[in-house]
């Protein structure tokens, strides 16, 4: 069984963290992963930086630009993660845009992920329809779970379609926006969380975009399986480096 499924079965109120590989320094990738696991995070999204991250707000854009400048690439990331399963057990997901994966070769990329022990992928600009028709077989051959996004604008029919193709969780984008930290959620978000909860989908939902602190984490996980923190975490490592990680995670989980 894939580590993602095991984790989803075993616990609730999962805390997942997104960070950009190769940021702030090129060689920070592995130390950040190890520290996050040690601090009690349940799952990680390792951001493979892209020159043109369409769905991301200023914080993740800036970290991607810096990571690329530092020399991050698909090849480099795989090299850094070569021995990651010797020290880290939590599910690891690579989140990246489709073009770098396409250039690497989709099958070769998937194969490499399996070799290393990556459990899943999130590719925001690979739509569910194209995945289903062209790539699902390859992903499954290498035991990789592909994660799809839904938003408050996604129709009920499409949520059902996405649920039917989903083998792990559904990434529920909290509001109509690019990535970026928010301090509170309004009624619109809570209504949307409730509405999706009431659909009784096969795949559990994890909320992302706009989660930044204990308050937003708590309100998101009231109706869902877990939440993902991205931009707010990037800000922490930008300002405080790796030593800022433990206090930040504790402030969410305490």
């Amino acid at each position, binding site marked *: 069984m894939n580590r993602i499924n095991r984790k989803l079965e075993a616990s609730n109120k999962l805390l997942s963290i997104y960070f950009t590989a190769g940021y702030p320094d090129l060689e920070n990738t592995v130390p950040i992963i190890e520290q996050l696991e040690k601090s009690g995070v349940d799952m990680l999204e390792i951001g493979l930086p892209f020159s043109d991250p369409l769905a991301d707000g200023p914080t993740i854009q800036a970290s991607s630009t810096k990571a690329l400048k530092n020399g991050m690439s698909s090849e480099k990331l795989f090299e850094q993660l070569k021995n990651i399963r010797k020290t880290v057990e939590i599910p690891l997901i690579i989140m990246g845009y489709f073009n770098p994966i396409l250039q690497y070769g989709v099958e070769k990329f998937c194969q490499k992920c399996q070799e290393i022990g990556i459990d899943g992928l999130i590719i925001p600009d690979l739509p569910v329809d194209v995945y289903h028709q062209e790539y699902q077989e390859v992903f499954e051959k290498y035991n990789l779970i592909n994660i799809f996004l839904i938003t408050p*604008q996604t129709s009920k029919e499409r949520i059902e379609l996405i649920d039917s193709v989903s083998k792990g969780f559904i990434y529920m984008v909290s509001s*109509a926006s690019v990535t970026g930290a928010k301090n509170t959620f309004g009624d619109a978000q809570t209504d949307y969380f409730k509405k999706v909860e009431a659909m009784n989908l096969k795949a559990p939902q994890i909320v992302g975009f706009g989660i930044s602190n204990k308050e937003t984490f708590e309100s998101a996980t009231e109706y869902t399986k877990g939440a993902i923190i991205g931009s707010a975490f990037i800000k922490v490592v930008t300002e405080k480096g790796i030593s800022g990680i433990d206090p930040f995670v504790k402030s969410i989980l305490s």
Partner: protein
Amino acid sequence: MYHVNKQGYYGEFGGAYIPEMLYPNVEKLRQEYLKIMGEESFIKQFNQLLKDYVGRPSPLYFAKGLSKKHGTKVYLKREDLNHTGAHKINNTIGQILLAKRLGKTRIIAETGAGQHGVATATVCALADIQCVVYMGEIDIQRQAPNVARMKMLGAEVRPALSGSRTLKDATNEAIRDWINNPVDTHYIIGSAIGPHPYPDMVTRFQSVISEEIKWQLQEKEGRDYPDYVVACIGGGSNAAGTYYHFLDNEKVNIIAVEAAGKGIQSGESAATSQLGKEGIIHGCKTLLMQTQDGQITEPYSISAGLDYPGVGPMHAHLYRSKRGTFYSATDEQAMKAGLELCKTEGIIPAIESSHALAIFEHTTFKEDDIVVISLSGRGDKDLDTYIRYFDL
């Protein structure tokens, strides 16, 4: 064979590689665009505006001086005479009418040189609808007069501060804006690029160019097709419109001219079909300039309107299928061809269009060949560049 198929592809290129956040808007557009464009009231309004507001039909001008000089029959399709000075307005008129019918109350657009930004700001003023134009911070500095024009027309010009701060980043910012404002906003893309249905929609709005060429040639030459159609390609909207009605007529040779910048091998170029590899840019599978790792690279051309690292999917297909012949003109060749047009015909072309005019550097035509060149825009916006380049 060269038109878009039901799935939104031209051969292997095209499609809609978009984040889920954009899906409802793009899907709605996909379902509605042909229906709306086929409505009688839409067609009437579109044609009326093209006639009374844009000033169409644009003349098909027999360029006597150029013809003599190059020993062939050269016609210029005078898109430079359109309101706002380029072909871009054909598309923005169409899209603003469509946006209104979709119930949208806010328009966003990207712009490089500012031509598409001005054309969008213009139709928004006309339709009394809010307009935000994204423009790279670097381009804002380079294209001050067009920034002023957009402001006078009531648009808000927002600088794109990310990445290289030019056209591709302005496009990213516009897409992010659309993600953030999915309900009230329509995104008017300025070229035949982006996720399906944009390339086809923009192409259809621009196809009035070749529709007119057909009857204009019939009047002048007694046949409704040329031997060659020639256009410059940035994203490819003026080219797509110029080729459209000739795509399936194999008697018509299709010629594309891209911007070679300082030379194909110089590292400062925008000749996408030659330097690009298949990939995804702005929601579309096409040829684009990128690193081996799949990071999109910065193009260069003296002409800001050709400074795009990708090319529309129709053109990627024309290139791959060899239906089109692709050339590229350097800055120097384009500037020289532009100046030649000034001296021989008394027309100052946009530097983008000068790339198409540079075709005579690359190939020769027979004496009785009919060669139609898309003169996509006029040179007013480029005066600064001309002044600096020729030390005027």
